[in-house]
């Protein structure tokens, strides 16, 4: 069974926490250590960012991390070799998150095949159009890789249904009309959006991401979905801790308790 599917079927009631970090930032060789530390510290799923030179859906923190990672020499090839090396030591699902051009240049079939070989369970590609997703899905399925699609406050109910009908794993629910980046609170409009989606009784579990950085935003997400995804906040803490993942986790748990 795909690890993503297993995670959600095993944890129907518990509140999940997924973290994002950009591979290659702050240090080139930190990938394996960060992943193992996060698993040890109770994180349920990890999104490993594949850096791209022009990440148009990301805010300043993740953009800066990608720039640093590329400068450090990170590439998809390099990342795969790092993941392969720790494959047997990781039990939680790993998802690669990156832009379409990087995967296209690697070759889509080759990409999904290598994902499987390296113990990756899913991929998030923010600029992948739905029509192209439908073309890629059979290839991803062949290697048991889930392509995770996003919905936003701008996504129509009809389209959400369509995405729900055609995907498997979970739906990545973007909290707000924004690029990635920490927010202080989720206002009423967001709560309303969360409840509206909740009321749709979708097939797939949902994870809420974008803007989660403290107790209020975390709890709000975990109440309204299977769990929360934290990106920019953790990337920042990891950078502040010079790549010491344990220290970054201490700081994250501290921030999430306030």
């Amino acid at each position, binding site marked *: 069974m795909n690890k993503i599917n297993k995670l959600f079927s095993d944890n129907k009631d518990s509140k999940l926490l997924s973290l994002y970090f950009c591979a290659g930032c702050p240090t080139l060789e930190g990938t394996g250590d960060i992943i193992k530390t996060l698993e040890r510290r109770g994180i349920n799923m990890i999104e490993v960012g594949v850096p791209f030179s022009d990440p*148009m*859906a990301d805010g300043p923190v993740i953009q800066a991390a990608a720039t640093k990672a590329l400068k450090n020499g990170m590439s998809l090839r390099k990342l795969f070799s790092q993941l392969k090396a720790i494959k047997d030591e990781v039990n939680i699902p790993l998802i690669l998150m990156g832009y379409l*051009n*990087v995967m*296209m240049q690697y070759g889509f079939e080759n990409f999904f095949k290598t994902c499987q070989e390296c113990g990756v369970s899913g991929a998030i590609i923010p600029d992948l159009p739905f029509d*192209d997703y439908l073309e890629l899905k059979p290839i991803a399925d062949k290697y048991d890789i889930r392509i995770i699609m996003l919905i936003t406050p*701008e996504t129509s109910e009809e389209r959400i249904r369509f995405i729900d009908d055609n995907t498997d794993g979970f739906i990545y629910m*973007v909290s707000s*009309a924004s*690029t990635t980046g920490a927010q202080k609170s989720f206002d009423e409009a967001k709560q309303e959006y969360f409840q509206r989606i909740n009321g749709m009784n979708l097939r797939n579990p949902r994870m809420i991401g974008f803007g989660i950085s403290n107790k209020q935003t975390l709890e709000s997400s975990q109440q309204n979905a299977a769990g929360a995804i934290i990106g920019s906040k953790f990337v920042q803490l990891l950078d502040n801790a010079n790549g010491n993942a344990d220290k970054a986790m201490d700081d994250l748990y501290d921030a999430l308790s306030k």
Partner: protein
Amino acid sequence: MSKYTVNEQGFYGNYGGAYIPEILYKTVEDLKKAYEPIIESEEFKKEYHALLKDYVGRPSPLYYAKRMSEKYGCQLYLKREDLNHTGAHKINNALGQILLAKKMGKTRIIAETGAGQHGVATATACALMDMPCTVYMGALDVQRQHVNVERMKMLGATVHPVESGNKTLKDGTNEAIRDWCCNPSDTFYIIGSTVGPHPYPEMVARLQSVISEEIKWQLQEKIGRDYPDYLMACVGGGSNAAGTIYHYLDDERVKIILGEAGGLGVDTDKTAASMQVGTLGILHGSRIKLMQTEDGQIIEPYSISAGLDYPGTGPLHCNLYETGRAQVLPANDDEALRAAFELTRMEGIIPALESAHALALLPKVASQFKKDDVVVLTVSGRGDKDLDTYLSHQSEISL
């Protein structure tokens, strides 16, 4: 339906599409549905054409360049987009899109700019229509084109210098897209070139197609037939070239020659000649020929001209190049500089550095011309903004 225009899925052959984050899906879809009925409506046409005539000063002249014709052994006509209000062809598109934005009920305008011409055009249109305007511009371009920055500010626009990447047009575009992601419902993004997600490339081409519409009747008046033997233009993102060729795309009697920025040479790593050195990739929502590494990271382009400093070219042009419909040649920095001085001395016209990349092709292709061949070359903008560059290179130029 022209075989070179966009298909229903938003592709020109193998190029184009709309590779955008989900947050922009609805906005782009709304635009796709709305733009065609609006720009085809009588109300829009009337308003748009009145502005083009009385505000921009169209039609722009089609000028017979006698001395240059003699030198290059052809009948050379210059399409004078440099004489438009704000100094370039960019205003044709900015006015069209702002009218569209108003009719779609949008209340805020954003734009990217490289040389600053599109930023100035957009800031101008916003002043005219009383709309708030934010322009994203690479920090390096802000330095290189400071006069245009001051113009935009004087027109009431907010100019955001972008410090990421190489601090040029590509980075300004990333930042504009980010703003759009954060404000999809009230903001209209006026893209300045034939790039970005479908329907932008086609929409911008159509709003610039007034250039070739005029060339048709102007040629009819001047030479008794409505088509030239050659059309020439420079191409960065591709908007003035698209406008120049739009109504001739299917007229195979008309040969198309486009000049892209060779920088220090296509065999160096200092170039912006994306059709010569690029490979298939995806940037800013569109599948195009792109300057990139094997790993799919975008390579920073280089050109002396801030307006051509983009790592790709629009999907329309990629397809014209691939199908052989257009000949695309690089013009290097030094060749463009020389061409700018040549036009200045021979015809008394100081062209923009971008336009000089089209002029720089004349010596390269003159051997193709017969004496009676009619060549229409678009001078997309005037050179006032480039005077610092021209003056600093003056001593290197030998005419």
